[in-house]
């Protein structure tokens, strides 16, 4: 075990750090504020120029063209986090569509979409889930009927973040209604201003309609050329699973920062003149969480190492989301408990602690336990793929 990064990487870290000190990027502005788009594009372009964004994407697609190097990625993440500077783009274009295009897109699709997506000139949303297809995503019903060289898309998508401000959508639709459920799906790109698309905001239990909001998207005979299919027609399920893998990794929120925030809260928060930290019972729960949080941190380092060594992580690679989501929910539960009767304050009311972070974090963590495959689906995957336990037998026809 060697946890030093070595001189080459420490130099790289210093480069990133001084770049971040020199370049004051756009801070956490509302994504809707005017002029933000232009500043975002400038900031992303600057990052690409220095290789801190689109680093491993070939130059011909508008990237920096470096060889993949996981440690560089880790270092960049660490330094951006340390400086408290957002990368600028958290939409699903760079994180999910671009890797898919690199793997499955046509040369024309890559040349056309990757560069503007990475530069933030185009925002994408993802049209996968449907009201009737949650855990069982492959049962999706949104249909794409052939009409000459086009498809006509009709149906409904849900949980579509940023749909209200995206120019494009990548979507899964059923192009072969008679094929078995996993083989009738295609992966299609289309502009959100195509006639027949309607976006409705979807309010969640957290009441949030801000940057993390969701939408429903309705499609009525939406016309899209067949050339907009990514990969082969009918292979959308396999292609989407590439992106879903990216999503599962991106859902692994690190709890270290949240733990520090909780400790600060517990030192500050007093009831009857005694701080929460002075309560042995709360302190015991805090220490339980600290141990779990550390375990998840080192687990993540182990997973990075597996990638660096090109080793298959086995079952260990499948458990991260399940454990992190529950941990984050439990951390916010303790925070809410130490605030006692004020733990429920919300919605920017007076006396609210940490700007309502803890209630929001609790709702969000519960959402993550459910989203991206419920905990139940995760456990199926862990036991089947990780432990080699048999799938449930198919039910007999009734």
């Amino acid at each position: 075990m060697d946890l030093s990064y070595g001189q080459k990487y420490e130099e790289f870290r210093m480069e990133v750090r001084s770049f971040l000190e020199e370049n004051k990027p756009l801070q956490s502005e509302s994504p809707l504020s005017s002029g933000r788009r232009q500043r975002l594009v400038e900031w992303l372009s600057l990052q690409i120029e220095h290789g801190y964004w689109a680093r491993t994407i070939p130059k011909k697609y508008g990237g920096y063209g470096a060889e993949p190097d996981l440690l560089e990625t880790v270092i960049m993440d660490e330094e951006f986090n340390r400086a408290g500077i957002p990368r600028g783009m958290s939409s699903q274009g760079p994180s999910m569509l671009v890797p898919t295009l690199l793997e499955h897109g046509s040369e024309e699709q890559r040349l056309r979409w990757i560069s503007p997506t990475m530069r933030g000139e185009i925002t994408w949303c993802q049209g996968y889930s449907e009201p009737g297809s949650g855990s069982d995503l492959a049962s999706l019903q949104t249909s794409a009927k052939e009409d000459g060289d086009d498809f006509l898309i009709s149906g409904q998508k849900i949980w579509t973040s940023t749909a209200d401000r995206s120019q494009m959508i990548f979507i899964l639709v059923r192009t072969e209604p008679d094929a078995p459920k996993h083989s009738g799906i295609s992966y299609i790109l289309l502009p959100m201003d195509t006639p027949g698309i309607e976006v409705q905001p979807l309010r969640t239990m957290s009441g949030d309609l801000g940057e993390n909001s969701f939408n429903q998207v309705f499609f009525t005979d939406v016309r899209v050329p067949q050339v907009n299919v990514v990969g082969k027609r009918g292979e959308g399920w396999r292609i989407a699973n590439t992106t879903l893998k990216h999503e599962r990794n991106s859902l692994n929120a690190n709890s270290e920062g949240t733990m520090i925030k909780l400790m600060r809260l517990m030192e500050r928060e007093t009831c009857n003149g005694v701080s929460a930290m002075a309560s042995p019972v709360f302190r015991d729960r805090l220490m339980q969480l600290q141990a779990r949080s550390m375990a998840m941190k080192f687990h993540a380092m182990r997973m990075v190492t597996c990638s660096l060594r090109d080793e298959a992580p086995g079952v260990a690679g499948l458990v991260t989301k399940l454990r992190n989501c529950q941990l984050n929910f439990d951390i916010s539960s303790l925070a809410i408990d130490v605030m006692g009767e004020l733990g429920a304050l919300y919605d920017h009311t007076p006396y609210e602690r940490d700007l309502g972070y803890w209630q929001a974090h609790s709702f969000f963590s519960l959402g993550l336990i459910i989203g991206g495959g419920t905990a139940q689906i995760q456990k199926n995957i862990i036991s089947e793929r990780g432990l080699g336990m048999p799938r449930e037998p198919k039910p007999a026809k009734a």
Partner: protein
Amino acid sequence: MDFGISEDQILLEETLRSFLSDRVPIERVRELRHEDCPNDPEIWQSLAELGMTGILLPEQSGGSDLGLLDACIAAQSLGHAVTPTPFLGSAVMVPTALKNLDHPEIGTWLSGIASGELRFGVAITETFSVREGAGLTISGGKISGKAMMSWDICGADFILIASGQDRLAVVRSDAEGIGQTRLATTDETRCTSELTLENVECAATFENASESISRMLDAGRIALAADCLGACEAMIEQAVAYAKERKQFERVIGSFQAVKHMCAEMISELEPARALVWYAAHSFDAVPNETPLLACHALSHVSEIGREIASVSTQVHGGIGWTDEQNLHFWFKRIGVARGLLGGPQWLRERAATLQGLDKAS
């Protein structure tokens, strides 16, 4: 030996539930959240007509002179329907505190509660939890200070205030020197506020009221546990119903063992908790020396299983349960806010230990 609710109590429950599903369905609750305060005066008036507001009051006040178990059956139904109402404060805690105290106005106030003409706010949080420098002092018939997380102040006629462990005061809500700031919580069905008082004229003050205060808190804790229990019950019902309908992988999800076992775990926690709340409420009138301990255990236990039930029944719904549209979050949040309202479970357990002298161990 008969441990259970009586036919009259079943009737009371049926009457109230049918009224609530008819007149305060979830659609009405959704509307009320857009008001400054969710406590709809019409609901209060209707509850009075059903005899609910005077449930604990003697007949001479126009009440029905029933016991805390009856009040808890009402509270459970109100929690089941997530009804916004000052029932817990005005119909349970204030009558419990005032009915054994002596003051010329008390008869009028209690009659007003029973008839639905009067509503009370309560400011009693500082009897168990002082935060943000809150605290109240009474001097020469005037009260000053700050009370955090007071309930049902909006639209109240009077406010019952505890200043310390043994003094109570009643003030008119429109008295000079009173300031209130709504404190919004996640629960949009409950009205909570900060109250500031500057030399406010008291309508009545009571010294040596420690017995009244602790009885009031015990009654409140047990009734809050009942409210929370009702909310849990409703969440499980919704989860089970949804699991029987929702199809994934060509099966209703309720046929998956994982989902079935989640539901089985929830109901197996709920049912014994119901007996605990019933007994705690029963003890309040029948064996009052047992009540303080039972009140702590009932509320802390229901708070703990409530957190689990709220989370698991939301998970059974999948993403749909997380939407505003599905309404499930009204129950989720009612349960979540109840957790701190009259002492968090950890505080209640330490108090349960203290009541048994266990904290004296060395």
